[in-house]
C-alpha cells in the first residue's frame, strides 16, 4: 500500500529522471487501466444501480401485463392451467365484449361512477381546503381527523357504509325518516335506481381527504402578496377564488383530477363489498365485471380483455397526468 502511494507521488513528478524510464514502460498499461475504469464507472456502473429497478419493473409490471395481453387473445379454460395450452382466438374476445350488452352498460356505468365521484371529491375537497386554509383554533386537529377515511382500509369503510345504508335498520334511513326529510325509507342499496347514488356517495367520502390534502398544500404555497394585492384592489371573495386562486392552482388541479380518475375507474373492493355489483347489475363496473367473468364464470379470456381495456383507459388519463405534471414543473421553472 505504502509503496503504491509512493509510486503515485513519483509519477506526478515527470521531471524525475529515474521515473521517466518507468513511465515509458508503464504508460500503455496505465492507459488501458484508465480506459477500463472509464468503461466501468461511466457505462456499466449506472446499469448496476438501475438493475434492481429494471428487474422489479420487468417482473412486477411487464410480465403480468404481457400475460394479461396474452390471455386476452386466448380461449382460456380451467384445463389451460394444467396443460399450459390455450387456443389462440385473435381479437374474438374483444369483439365479443363489444357485442355484450352487459359490458357496454358496465362501461357506461364506469363513466357515470367516475364523473360523479370526481366532481364530488374535487369540489368538496377544494371547499374543505379553503375552509381549513383560514386557520382557526383546532383547525390542525380537525384537518388531521379529516384524513381518517383515507387511512381506513376500504373493506372497513365499505362494510360500515353498507350497514348505514341498510333499508330497515340503517342509520341513514333512521335519521332521514326521524327528521321527516323523506316520507319513506330510501332503498339505498336495494333498489336499482339508488344503488349507484349510494356507491358514488361512499366513493366521494373515501376520496375527499386526498383532494383536500393536496389542495390544502397547494393553497399554503400560494404567494400571499398576490392575494393581498387582489384584496386591496377590491376583488370580492368569489372573484379572488375564480380569478386568482383557481388559475394559480391550475396544474395542481390537473394532477388531482388525473390521479383521482385513474384511481376511480378501477375501484373494485368498495363496490364489491357495498353492493357486489348489484342489485341486478345496477352498480356493475368494468372492474367488478372483469372479476365476475374471470373468477365466477371461469372465463379468463374475456376477463383479461376487460382488464386490458381498463388499463388502456387508465393509461389515457396517466398521459394527461404526465402532461400536466410537466406543465407545472415548467411553470415552477419560469417562476
Amino acid at each position, binding site marked *: 500500500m505504502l509503496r503504491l502511494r509512493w509510486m503515485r507521488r513519483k509519477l506526478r513528478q515527470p521531471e524525475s529522471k529515474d521515473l521517466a524510464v518507468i513511465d515509458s514502460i508503464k504508460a500503455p498499461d496505465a492507459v488501458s487501466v484508465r480506459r477500463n475504469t472509464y468503461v466501468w464507472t461511466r457505462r456499466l456502473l449506472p446499469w448496476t444501480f438501475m438493475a434492481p429497478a429494471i428487474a422489479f419493473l420487468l417482473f412486477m409490471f411487464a410480465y403480468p401485463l404481457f400475460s394479461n395481453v396474452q390471455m386476452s387473445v386466448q380461449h382460456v*379454460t*380451467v*384445463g*389451460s*392451467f*394444467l*396443460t*399450459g395450452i390455450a387456443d389462440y382466438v385473435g381479437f374474438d374476445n374483444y369483439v*365479443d365484449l363489444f357485442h*355484450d*350488452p*352487459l359490458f357496454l352498460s358496465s362501461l357506461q356505468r364506469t363513466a357515470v361512477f367516475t364523473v360523479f365521484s370526481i366532481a364530488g371529491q374535487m369540489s368538496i375537497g377544494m371547499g374543505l381546503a379553503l375552509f381549513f386554509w383560514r386557520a382557526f383554533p383546532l383547525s390542525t386537529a380537525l384537518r388531521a381527523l379529516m384524513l381518517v377515511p383515507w387511512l381506513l382500509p376500504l373493506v372497513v369503510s365499505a362494510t360500515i357504509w*353498507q350497514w348505514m345504508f*341498510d*333499508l*330497515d335498520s340503517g342509520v341513514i334511513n333512521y335519521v332521514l325518516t326521524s327528521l321527516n326529510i323523506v316520507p319513506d325509507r330510501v*332503498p339505498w*342499496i*336495494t*333498489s*336499482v*335506481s339508488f344503488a349507484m347514488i349510494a356507491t358514488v356517495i361512499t366513493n366521494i367520502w373515501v376520496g375527499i381527504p386526498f383532494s383536500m390534502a393536496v389542495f390544502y398544500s397547494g393553497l399554503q404555497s400560494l404567494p400571499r402578496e398576490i392575494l393581498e394585492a387582489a384584496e386591496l384592489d377590491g376583488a370580492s371573495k368569489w372573484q379572488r377564488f375564480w380569478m386568482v386562486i383557481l388559475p394559480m392552482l391550475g396544474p395542481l388541479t390537473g394532477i388531482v383530477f388525473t390521479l383521482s380518475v385513474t384511481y376511480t375507474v378501477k375501484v373494485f373492493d368498495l363496490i364489491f363489498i357495498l*353492493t*357486489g*355489483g*348489484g*342489485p*341486478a*347489475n*345496477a352498480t356493475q363496473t368494468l372492474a367488478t365485471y372483469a372479476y*365476475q367473468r374471470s*373468477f*365466477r*364464470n*371461469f*372465463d379468463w379470456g374475456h376477463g383479461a380483455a376487460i382488464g386490458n381495456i381498463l388499463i388502456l383507459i387508465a393509461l389515457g388519463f396517466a398521459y394527461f397526468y404526465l402532461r400536466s405534471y410537466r406543465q407545472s414543473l415548467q411553470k415552477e421553472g419560469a417562476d
Partner: protein
Amino acid sequence: MANIGRRTVGGHRVLLVSASVLALGLGMGAQARAATLTTIDYFTEATGSAAIEKMFKTCSDATGIQIDRQKVPYPELVQKVLQAASSNSLPDLILMDNSDAAQLAAGGIIVPMADVGETLDGFDPSLVSVGNYKGKNYTMQPGVNTLGLWYNTDMFKAAGIDKPPTTWEELRADAKKLTTKDVYGLAFPAVATEEGTFHASPFIWSNGGDFQTLNSQNNIDALNYMKSLIDDGSVSKSVVTWTGDDSNDQFMAGRSAMLIGGSWHLKANEGGAIHYDITSIPTPKGDQVKVPVGGEAWGVSTTADKATAKTYLDCLALDPNVLSWAVNGSYVPAKKAVLEDFKKQKADMIPFISSTAGATSRTAVLATDYPKYSSAFSAAEQAVLTGAKDAKTALDEAEAQATGK
C-alpha cells in the same frame, strides 16, 4: 482479520450443517413420499378446521398415511388449485365445493373415481350422481347439505298458526300473517352470486323449471311468486343484499319468522335465543320438494399417487367415519347404512334428510356452463325482486346473456 476468519469458518460450518440437513430431508422426503398425501380445503374457521383435523387423525392412524394439509378461504380454493396446476404442484386430495367439481373435472385436474379404483359402494346413488360430469363420477362426498324451511315456533303460536306451510299458497298466507311492524314473515338470501341462485332453486325446480332454459314460463312464474312475497311486505326488500349468513342472522335475531336456510347453520344456531323448528320448503302443490345439494366433496388430482389416494379415501368412506363427519359438520350422510344411527344422534337433521329425496343436481346438465347461467339468473332474480324489470323481460335478457346471443 481474525474476526473475518472466524466468521468464514462459522459460515462453512453452517453451510455444512445445512447441507447435511438438506440431504437428510431429501432422503426422508423420498422415503416418506409414498406415505404422504397433500390436501387442500377451505375450512378456515375453528370448528370446521377441528372437525377435519380429527378426521385426518383417525384415518392417518388407521392407514399410516400422513397428511400435509393446506387450508385457504372459500373463494380462493379454485384459484389456488389452478395456480398449483400451472406450477405443477397440485395437492393430491382436493376437498371442494361440489359445484366446482364439474369445472375441475372438465379441466382434467381431478380424475374419475373409477380411475382411482374407488367404487363408492354403499353410497346413495341419487346423491352420488349429483356430482357427475359427463356421466362419470369425479368425487367422493361423504355428506351433503341442503336447504329447509326454518320457522320460529313462538311466533307461529302467537299468530295462531298450528302447522308449518306446505304449499306456496299457505307459505304466502302465513308469511303475511306473521309479518308485523318489526318482523318480516320470511327471509332468504338473494345476493348476485351463486348463493342467490342456490337459495332460489327450490322455487324454480319445484315449479317445473330449470336453469338450462332461463326464460321458461315455469321460471317466470316462480320468480313472480317470490316477487309477490316482497309486494305483500312479507319479505324485506333488502334480501338482494343478504348472503345466507345475513338472512340466517335476521332469523336468529327474531327479525324474521321463517327462513329458507341451509343445514350448515345448525351448529352455529344451537343454543340461540329463539325457538325454532325445521321442515321441508313448501312447493306449489305441497308435493316432494326438489332441493339443491351442496357440501364438500373429495376429488383426487391427476398428479396424485392413485393407490395411496384410494387407501385414504377408503378410510374416509368407512361407515363410522362417514357418520362422525356428518354429525360433526351437520351433513346428511351419503350412505344409507348409517342413516338410522345418524337420526338418533342428530334428530334436528331429519327434515333435511327427507328433503334430500328430491336432491337435484345443479351442474349435471350445464356442467362447465353452469356458472355463466347461474350469474345471469341471479342478476335476473335481483331485477325482478327489486321491481326493476318484469320477470319475462329479466329472464329473456338473462337467457341472452348466458347463451351469448
